[in-house]
């Protein structure tokens, strides 16, 4: 069939017009016409992205019955979508169009007009060659379910549920223990500013419980989760009774499994589990919130206490971020109960990342809490007396007695994180926390579309940071899964030809999204269209030429390359 390719050069006001010789471009490009197989129509316009410019293009496409369209203008980042929409308007398949960026790649970087013009011509020629090999692609629409599964009912999971649930969106909130709220329900008060009690948290817990659009499952875990953004099939199981199962579908999954505390028994020098009155921070929080008291085993309030930060930090290889602050909180609890208590906090580094932290630290220090920076530390018992033996940063060894010892163990990923990662096909980082899609740019998403992470499941976090995550994920899901709106999955994805695939599975091993599965019966690999993102990695890896990247096929790229260097 003969091709009728329209090539439109945009002046972009003076941006392009002043820097390249558009007349010359039009003349040279027109001369590439090879009727009847390849007819090239060329024209210029002042501002193609303007409404008037778009109408002009639409008109040209229709009037000339173009089969392909090349636009020489600005960056695809600016107007690819604009021009694709013009194509759609005129029933020209948008994948039969190509935008050539003669502005950033020619006009703006080459001061010599002649050279800029020459490069523009070369570049447009390459584009024309490519477009001739492009194929129409159709966008598919998939039904999507707006409902969401939230795994873990700590503060991060609760806030996620609250920000998502609505009349049109059900939230399934899952918790493996018998009650919701997570760690925060074990605290007496919430830092900073000693004095905030748990009421604000209790209000949130109550709000989830009363919300008709949130269905809570306790003592329940995920049994199965298969699918993709907009359509995950979920099976839950009761932890006491394998047969008690629940099945439903959701469009997205939020992982809010929180953290565990490192077990200090693993480091014998802290004496935890062996020496009396050595506690973890969480034990102190729990006892204080349940009984309102912090007492020694003997039933007496302590006269001296040593608070030891960073327990397990070196072993874990990261700072847990929240401990310094809550250790000030614990010091203040002790001071409130017994103002004459002598408290020493042993730290390695102070982590004060939030805006109120410095003030909270100074306030704690002013309450006559001593702070000692140590290099090595161990807890010793001699007769009934307990001592903290430590080396200071200057190398001096010292020791002080303490009746009560409170440890701040490192924050670790929740037990069972590996299982969740495997079920959902997402990754854990070297520390065992859930791996975000991008540490800097996309910290609440994962490598799987539709699966998100919030709170300390991703990284040790305090309550405000966990809430921030939850609200961010709320925003993401609300914009991605709009009730009643269908999903349009990526069209420029890969496909594998049955005939050429030898079943070597090289492609499986390079795909970061698990988008390829191996069909045992047919002994070939198959791309899951709903998951593939179209990076093309599998295509470059396939030794048999069986994998193809739609819109980035090898012939398309070859044609572009060959014409560019001709």
């Amino acid at each position: 069939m003969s091709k009728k390719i329209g090539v439109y050069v945009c002046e972009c006001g003076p941006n392009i017009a002043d820097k390249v010789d558009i007349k010359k471009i039009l003349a040279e490009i027109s001369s590439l016409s090879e009727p009847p197989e390849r007819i090239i129509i060329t024209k210029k316009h002042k501002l193609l992205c303007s409404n008037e410019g778009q109408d002009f293009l639409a008109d040209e496409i229709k009037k000339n019955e173009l089969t392909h369209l090349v636009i020489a203008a600005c960056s695809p980042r600016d107007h690819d979508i604009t021009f694709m929409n013009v194509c759609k308007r005129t029933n020209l398949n948008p994948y039969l169009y190509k935008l050539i960026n003669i502005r950033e790649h020619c006009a703006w970087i080459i001061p010599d007009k002649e050279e800029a013009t020459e490069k523009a011509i070369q570049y447009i020629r390459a584009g024309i060659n490519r477009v001739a090999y492009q194929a129409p692609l159709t966008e598919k629409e998939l039904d999507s379910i707006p409902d969401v599964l939230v795994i873990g009912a700590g503060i991060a999971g609760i806030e996620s549920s609250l920000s998502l649930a609505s009349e049109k969106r059900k939230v399934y909130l899952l918790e493996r223990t018998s009650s919701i709220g997570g760690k925060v329900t074990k605290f007496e008060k919430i830092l900073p500013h000693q004095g905030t009690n748990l009421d604000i948290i209790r209000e949130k817990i109550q709000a989830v419980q009363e919300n008709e659009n949130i269905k809570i499952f306790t003592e329940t875990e995920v049994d199965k989760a298969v699918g993709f953004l907009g359509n995950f099939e979920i099976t839950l199981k009761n932890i006491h009774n394998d047969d008690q199962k629940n099945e439903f579908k959701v469009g997205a999954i939020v992982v809010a499994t929180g953290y565990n505390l490192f077990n200090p028994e693993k480091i014998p020098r802290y004496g935890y589990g062996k020496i009396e009155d050595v506690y973890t921070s969480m034990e102190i929080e729990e006892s204080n919130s349940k009984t309102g008291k912090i007492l020694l085993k003997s039933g007496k309030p302590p006269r001296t206490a040593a608070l030891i930060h960073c327990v397990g930090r070196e072993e874990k290889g990261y700072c847990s971020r929240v401990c310094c602050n809550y250790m000030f909180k614990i010091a203040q609890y002790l001071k409130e109960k017994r103002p004459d208590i002598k408290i020493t906090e042993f730290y390695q580094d102070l982590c004060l990342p939030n805006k109120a932290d410095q003030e909270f630290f100074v306030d704690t220090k002013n309450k006559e809490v001593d702070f000692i920076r140590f290099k090595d530390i161990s807890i010793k018992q001699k007769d009934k007396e307990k001592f903290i033996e430590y080396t200071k940063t200057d190398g001096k060894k010292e020791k002080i007695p303490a009746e009560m010892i409170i440890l701040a163990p490192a924050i670790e990923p929740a037990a069972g994180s590996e299982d969740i990662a495997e079920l959902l096909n997402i990754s854990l980082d070297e520390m065992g926390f859930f791996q975000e899609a991008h540490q800097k740019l996309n910290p609440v998403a994962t490598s799987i579309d539709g699966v998100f992470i919030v709170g300390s499941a991703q990284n040790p976090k305090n309550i405000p940071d966990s809430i921030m995550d939850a609200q961010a994920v709320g925003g993401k899901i609300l914009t991605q899964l709009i009730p009643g709106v269908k999903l349009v999955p990526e069209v420029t994805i890969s496909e594998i030809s049955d005939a050429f695939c030898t079943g070597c599975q090289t492609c499986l091993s390079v795909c970061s999204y698990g988008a390829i599965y191996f069909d045992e019966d047919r002994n070939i690999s198959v791309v899951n269209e709903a998951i593939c993102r179209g990076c093309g990695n599998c295509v470059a890896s396939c030794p048999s030429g069986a994998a193809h990247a739609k819109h980035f096929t090898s012939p398309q790229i070859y044609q572009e390359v060959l014409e560019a260097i001709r």
Partner: protein
Amino acid sequence: MKEHKPKIICFLCKWCTSAGADLAGTSRLRYPPAILPIRVMCSSRIDPAFIIKAFLNGADGVFIGGCHPGDCHYQEGNYHTRRRFAILKKVFDALGLESKRLKLSWISASEGVKFARVSNEYTEKIKSFGENPTKSNVFL
């Protein structure tokens, strides 16, 4: 003698280097017209065969630009690119092609200056090597 005008194919990944090249443009930086951009979704789409074909057809150099390690839009694509690139260099040597004409560089969306600098330096280097000898050598 006429000055040799090199032709350099420059593969740009959509998410980082292509955006970096745009920034070089919007910042009105200067780099030679020799650089001919070809946009792909990810540097990992680049089949070594593209590069060999480009050389056999007269490219004087091939330059691949991708996101910095750890920043690939598709997670680990650029690690695969790096591995394939290392192997390709060996293949080039084995075939008697000049592997010194190949370049891989990580350039982010905010590194317009780096894009221009690398393009300038690389073009100078390619110029100093002269024309790609392979295009006149029929050897395959």
